[in-house]
């Protein structure tokens, strides 16, 4: 590793590719690790769009307004400086993607078009049909391929990060990864490592996440000393399509384009939706939140839908409500929402242009993640994080279409910070090879033990049980007794984990060993989420406890920090940086009232 700087990136979604592009452009070497070919990363599932206050609609939008919506929507748990910096960078990010050739939808004059999303009154969301994540990911994939051809980027697709290589001073010196075909373990020295491995949705079993979203790489960092922040804040998306294998996302853009959520007013009304007259429909979001209607933030929409179903008002008495687009001309729908309507049609069979969709909330996004400072640096020197796997931007609830922009922002900030660190760090010299050999050996022993052990537990059953427990008890509504039981269950599953067997006589390209390693890591992160929720006796954003229904700034305007120990997570609490906008109560039944705030220029 003499000479130039080499930076390892774990994850090839938007955040990882954004960082890779910036580092390669600066002339440095990137090694990019991804479980799947990067073009197949979970970012492709993002649908609705990307936020940026470009203000081309004559609405007086501004990056400050975007910032205020973001921290207000996040119930004031986000540190404000990075959220502000992201909102300020957002227009330039959108323009950059425009230059990369993303087919964003256009206005009559050929300008970028913007649509509405939740938690704002402005048209602020740029979109490419209803597959914006796919389009943005492809644009970065293309640019990174260009640097790959130029020799700056080396991809390790089909390799999964197992652990960090830390030196005697807890400085990150690279990582150990496993080839998912040969199961070969190999150490990769690097001057800095950026984790961009996405969210941990698979901990909940079925979610809107892709199958690679295990949070396993993040959990490995946590086990090795990285702090994990705000784990209990899990976003449950109000509108997903329940399925046998996963919950498929139905984008918020459906409501952004005018979709209305309703149930029949009369419990048990068995009529077809079209034959129920307006007066006998309960548009519960519009009635309760006249200012924002169907575009209230996700945590609020989710709780209302959940509540309506608990009261027995769900369609056909089941856990489902209507999301209705049928009043919008089919041609408009095809143009603006085509891709998501196809998904609904393909998996449910009904045509949402003519029949209201039936939807229910589903686990979607983790606001929590690796703790990072305002330069995306974790507490482990030389280790950075960006994207859904870091906790930095969204506070207690993420606004729709803020994820794509936060992923790219995180990557763009992490890249120069990693370069900066790499330029100044002392290399570990002749002592180095020992570190890499030791860590590779440790990982090999973990694999060997799993392969050798036998028992009658099935790891996929254990995963299902974990997912059910977490979904039942650590999502929309949380009670302390059930959170405690959840932790007991997680401990029981950890115990049974020692009796799983790999059950694959052929280890070439087996799915069983990687899944077993991921499951172990998911169990650790699950405890961070459940116990973080148990400790936090208030309601804020996505974290809702009926026994503590109010936000409690006096005691809980704090970032939860979890650190690993052999006996379970150790919790501490950090103050939140609220230096720019004083916290105020969220109320989406009325127009947002902004106090005059420091830093906002008079207009």
């Amino acid at each position: 590793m003499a000479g130039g700087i080499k930076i390892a990136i774990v994850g090839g979604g938007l955040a990882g590719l954004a960082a890779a592009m910036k580092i390669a452009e600066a002339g440095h070497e990137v090694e990019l690790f991804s479980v799947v070919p990067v073009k197949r990363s979970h970012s492709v599932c993002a649908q609705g769009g990307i936020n940026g206050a470009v203000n081309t609609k004559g609405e007086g939008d501004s990056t400050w307004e975007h910032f205020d919506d973001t921290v207000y929507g996040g119930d004031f748990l986000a540190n404000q400086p990075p959220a502000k910096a992201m909102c300020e960078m957002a227009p330039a990010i959108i323009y950059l993607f425009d230059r990369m050739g993303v087919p964003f939808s256009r206005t009559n004059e050929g300008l970028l078009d913007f649509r509405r999303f939740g938690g704002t009154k402005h048209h602020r969301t740029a979109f490419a049909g209803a597959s914006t994540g796919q389009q943005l990911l492809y644009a970065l994939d293309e640019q990174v391929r260009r640097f790959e051809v130029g020799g700056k980027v080396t991809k390790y697709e089909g390799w999964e990060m197992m652990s960090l290589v830390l030196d005697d001073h807890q400085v990150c010196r690279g990582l150990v990864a496993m080839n998912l075909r040969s199961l070969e373990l190999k150490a990769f020295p690097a001057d800095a490592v950026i984790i961009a491995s996405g969210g941990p949705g698979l901990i909940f079993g079925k979610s809107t996440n892709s199958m690679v979203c295990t949070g396993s790489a993040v959990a490995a960092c946590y086990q090795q000393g990285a702090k994990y922040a705000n784990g209990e804040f899990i976003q449950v998306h109000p509108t997903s399509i329940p399925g046998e294998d996963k919950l498929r996302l139905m984008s918020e853009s459906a409501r952004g384009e005018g979709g209305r959520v309703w149930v029949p007013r009369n419990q048990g009304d068995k009529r077809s939706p079209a034959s129920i007259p307006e007066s006998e429909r309960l548009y519960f979001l519009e009635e309760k939140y006249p200012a924002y209607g169907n575009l209230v933030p996700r945590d609020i929409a989710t709780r209302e839908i959940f509540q309506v179903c608990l009261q027995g008002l769900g369609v056909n008495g089941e856990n489902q409500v209507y999301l209705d687009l049928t009043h919008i001309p089919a041609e408009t729908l095809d143009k603006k929402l085509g891709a998501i309507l196809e998904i609904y049609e393909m998996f449910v069979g009904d045509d949402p242009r003519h029949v209201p969709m039936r939807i229910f909330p589903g686990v979607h996004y983790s606001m929590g993640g690796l703790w990072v400072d305002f330069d995306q640096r974790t507490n482990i020197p030389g280790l950075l994080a960006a994207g859904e796997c870091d906790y930095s931007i969204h506070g207690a609830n993420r606004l729709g279409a803020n994820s794509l922009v936060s992923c790219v922002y995180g990557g763009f900030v992490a890249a120069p910070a990693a370069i900066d660190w790499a330029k100044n760090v002392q290399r570990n010299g002749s002592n180095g090879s020992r570190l890499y050999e030791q860590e590779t050996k440790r990982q090999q022993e973990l694999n060997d033990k799993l392969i050798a052990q036998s028992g009658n537990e099935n790891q996929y059953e254990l995963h299902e049980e974990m997912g059910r427990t977490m979904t039942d008890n650590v999502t929309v509504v949380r009670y302390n007794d059930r959170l405690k039981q959840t932790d007991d269950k997680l401990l029981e599953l950890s115990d049974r984990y020692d009796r799983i067997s790999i059950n694959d006589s052929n280890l070439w390209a087996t799915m069983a060993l990687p899944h077993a390693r991921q499951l172990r890591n998911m169990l650790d992160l699950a405890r961070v989420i459940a116990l973080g929720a148990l400790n936090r006796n208030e309601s804020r954003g996505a974290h809702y406890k009926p026994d503590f229904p109010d936000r409690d700034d006096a005691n809980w305007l704090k970032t939860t920090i979890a650190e690993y120990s052999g006996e379970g997570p150790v919790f501490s609490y950090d103050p939140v940086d609220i230096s720019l906008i004083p916290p105020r109560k969220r109320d989406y039944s009325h127009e947002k009232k902004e106090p005059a705030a420091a830093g906002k220029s008079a207009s």
Partner: protein
Amino acid sequence: MDGPQHWEIFEIPYRPNLNVISCLMEIRKNPVTKSGQKTTPPSWDMNCLEQVCGICTMVINGRVRQSCSALVDKLDKPIKLEPMSKFPNVRDLQVDRSQMFDHLKRVHAWIELDGTYDLGPGPRMDQDDVMERYAYSRCMTCGCCLEACPQYDEDHYIGPQAIAQVRLFNMHPSGAMDRDERLQGIMGDDGITNCGNAQNCVRVCPMNIPLTKAIYEENRETVVHGLLGWLKK
């Protein structure tokens, strides 16, 4: 890895709305064949399960498609699963499609940015052109078109996937500036002229990409390009 091939038959309890992936997951939990034989579960690729990542493509009842969107209710039983045949087999239902990503390198499937720093917005574009580009841009590199193409085999033909990406970038005002480099990529011995016009590609494309239109347009572009090159000599 080419090893001996064999079939295994499994029986899955029916539930409404099952897709092929849910069946495979069921087998993974309880890998016992129909005849009661304990076996090792098959391995396959899966990720998004929403037919947008392209990874879970396989041949189902003789037709290439994504297994996540293959609903059991709509398939003839017993359901027959095979790996794609045009790509090196990794194991069971997994194949290696890295050649498709190599195609993208060959045809320079990207815009030559001056840099990622802020230069303001890109060129203004007509929504109709954007819609046409959007159709090509939805390609998820799944390989259905190549599996179904009678010409795509043993490096004889680069195939519709890469040609459609040439179209995507050549249609863009900035992309058009490097048009010639992209055309070079599809004008070799294994280039665009090898298309036999069977039109299987458009029939199997899960994203309904107008692949034959791309081939038609790019064929025209390469002819003009070739002619100009010849005149310049």
